[in-house]
């Protein structure tokens, strides 16, 4: 028998003897800055970009109409970036958002055009369908235990397939003016509707992230899934919530895209997933979960739109955009990882690090790969025969 007889009247205020546990008082400066790292990163890159454009093409880039274009382009990605921040905070990922956007937009288009649904039903319906797609993703990940990378990648294929089945090659266009307004309308007074929608979702996302259980548990689940379980958090349910939100935002983006282009087809929104994930990562959210920033994701979205706009303004070929985006993503993640490293001033610089035996082996290996590739090019040139024109 475990005799735990409760002693009556014992209330719990007992100060401990001995000195209180106060080491260096308060948070260090570095720690106070840490909270803003997520913001400093993209801000620094935005500043750098503005500087470059100031030098190269000031008149065409720094126009109010150009910033308007940038904002409207960014607004399309804001809702998804907000939701993706939460998903990534849980150590998850969702690669299916482009297909969900296309699928829900196509269903909405059919409801409006073939079945005469009013826009104020069709738009919430698209969002709700997106939420259902997110629910499927969430259930696959939590109940079937399929890892999120594979699960959402596969569903990306599946949702895209559904979109193709429904629409085949058809381009659905000419939507009612309200839907077009959602995509590209303006409230007189020079505020674009998509920007209002985008910024509102970011605001809601900020409240969710900092002041609701959903945000708190998303962070906890990503930071220490075991601890989340032990403290009684219903991990599976909250993971599903996060994916449902993601799907709903993808549905909203689908509506915005359909309105903006006044057209939608099964192949619409091909690179939503990479663009949004890039924006979130550039904004300082850690892919390992537990640490993120809604404001950082907003900055990331703005940065990517500014960068693409800059490339267009500089008349750089469209396909270089992908190279540029890739470079920016890698540079920012590498920079953040370097910032997070606790010990940054040891080991004496690049030259000494290249001189170690391990580094030498690596350099020899790299040289070997380049040599083989170079030799093959040389071989081809030596044995070159007739050439045919490349159209």
């Amino acid at each position, binding site marked *: *028998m*475990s*005799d*735990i*007889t*409760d*002693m009556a009247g*014992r209330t*719990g*205020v*007992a*100060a*401990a*003897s*001995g000195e*209180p*546990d*106060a*080491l*260096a*008082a*308060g*948070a260090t400066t570095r*720690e106070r800055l840490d909270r803003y790292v997520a913001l400093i990163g993209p801000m620094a890159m935005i500043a750098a970009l503005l500087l470059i454009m100031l030098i190269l093409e000031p008149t065409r880039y720094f126009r109010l109409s150009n910033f308007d274009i940038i904002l409207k382009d960014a607004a399309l990605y804001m809702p998804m970036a907000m939701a993706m921040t939460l998903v990534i905070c849980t150590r998850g990922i969702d690669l299916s958002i482009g297909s969900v956007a296309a699928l829900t937009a196509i269903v909405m288009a059919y409801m409006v055009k073939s079945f005469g649904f009013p826009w104020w039903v069709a738009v919430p319906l698209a969002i709700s369908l997106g939420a259902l797609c997110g629910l499927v993703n969430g259930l696959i990940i939590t109940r079937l235990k399929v890892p999120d990378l594979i699960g959402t990648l596969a569903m990306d294929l599946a949702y895209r397939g559904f979109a193709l089945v429904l629409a085949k090659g058809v381009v659905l266009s000419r939507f009612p003016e309200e839907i077009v307004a959602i995509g590209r309308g303006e409230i007189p007074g020079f505020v674009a509707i998509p920007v209002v929608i985008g910024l509102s979702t970011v605001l809601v996302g900020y*409240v969710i992230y*900092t*002041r*609701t*259980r959903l945000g*708190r548990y998303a*962070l*906890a689940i*990503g*930071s*220490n899934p*075991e*601890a*989340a379980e*032990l*403290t*009684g*958090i219903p991990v599976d349910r909250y993971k599903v919530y996060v994916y449902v939100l993601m799907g709903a935002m993808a549905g909203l983006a689908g509506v915005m895209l359909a309105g903006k282009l006044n057209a939608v087809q099964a192949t619409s929104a091909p690179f939503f997933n990479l663009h949004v994930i890039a924006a979130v990562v550039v904004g300082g959210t850690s892919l390992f979960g*537990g*640490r993120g920033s809604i404001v950082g994701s907003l900055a990331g979205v703005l940065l990517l739109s500014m960068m693409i706009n800059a490339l267009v303004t500089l008349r750089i070929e469209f396909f270089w955009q992908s190279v540029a985006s890739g470079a920016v993503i890698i540079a920012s993640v590498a920079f953040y990882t370097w910032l997070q490293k606790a010990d940054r001033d040891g080991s004496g610089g690049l030259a000494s690090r290249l001189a170690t035996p391990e580094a030498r082996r690596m350099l020899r290996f790299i040289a070997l790969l380049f040599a083989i590739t170079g030799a093959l090019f040389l071989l081809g040139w030596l044995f070159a025969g007739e050439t045919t024109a490349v159209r």
Partner: protein
Amino acid sequence: MRGIGKRFGGVTALDDVDLDLYPGEVLAIVGDNGAGKSTLIKILTGVHRPTSGTLTMAGEPLVLTGHSDAITRGIDAVYQSLALADHLTPAANLFLGSELTVRVLGVTLLDNRRMRAEAERVLNERLGVRLRSMDVPTSSLSGGQRQAVAIARAVYRSDLKVLVMDEPTAALGPQETARTLKLIETVRDQGIAVVVISHSLDDVFAVSDRIQVMRRGRGAGVVDTADSDVTSVLGLIVGASAEAA
């Protein structure tokens, strides 16, 4: 706990173990690896159900349906891994799973300010601990301070009767160990029954009132700390009458 037995398939982890626990005392459970210490306290905290034997609390039979059931009955544990979300603040960790909320315009939101204040109060007043800062990620606090946050989380429930601590000082240096042991004494002085599993007999003799020794799934003896010493307890752990290994 009386006559507790636990079998996992063909393996007998516990065999006819008794355990008595009283409020306002620290009971140390010691024993070599595989002696059954973890299994015993997992039964106490409701994680496992005993294959045989009974639990009673305050004279009433106690049947636990799970860990959360144990918590509502006033039995909680601080694990060796501490179960802290390192990226969150101490206050967030303290209230993890049972956040304080406030209704704003019909929406339930987290009351971060009140949680921070309450966390500071529990740590300062009930445990006598002042953290380096309440606004940093918990991972940047020292091991002892992280212990304090984990203990505060368990202690915050006003109806806590039993606190189980699994290897609380295993990863701590001497100064932090001393602080943690003081914390354990503070918790005990508030009338809570504290069960400490430890490999360190020094710590055990520093803080416990009674010592229960486990060996190979059976109880090997219970001694009052004041009346015993390291050698005799070691003897009980190892088996003074040399049994065949």
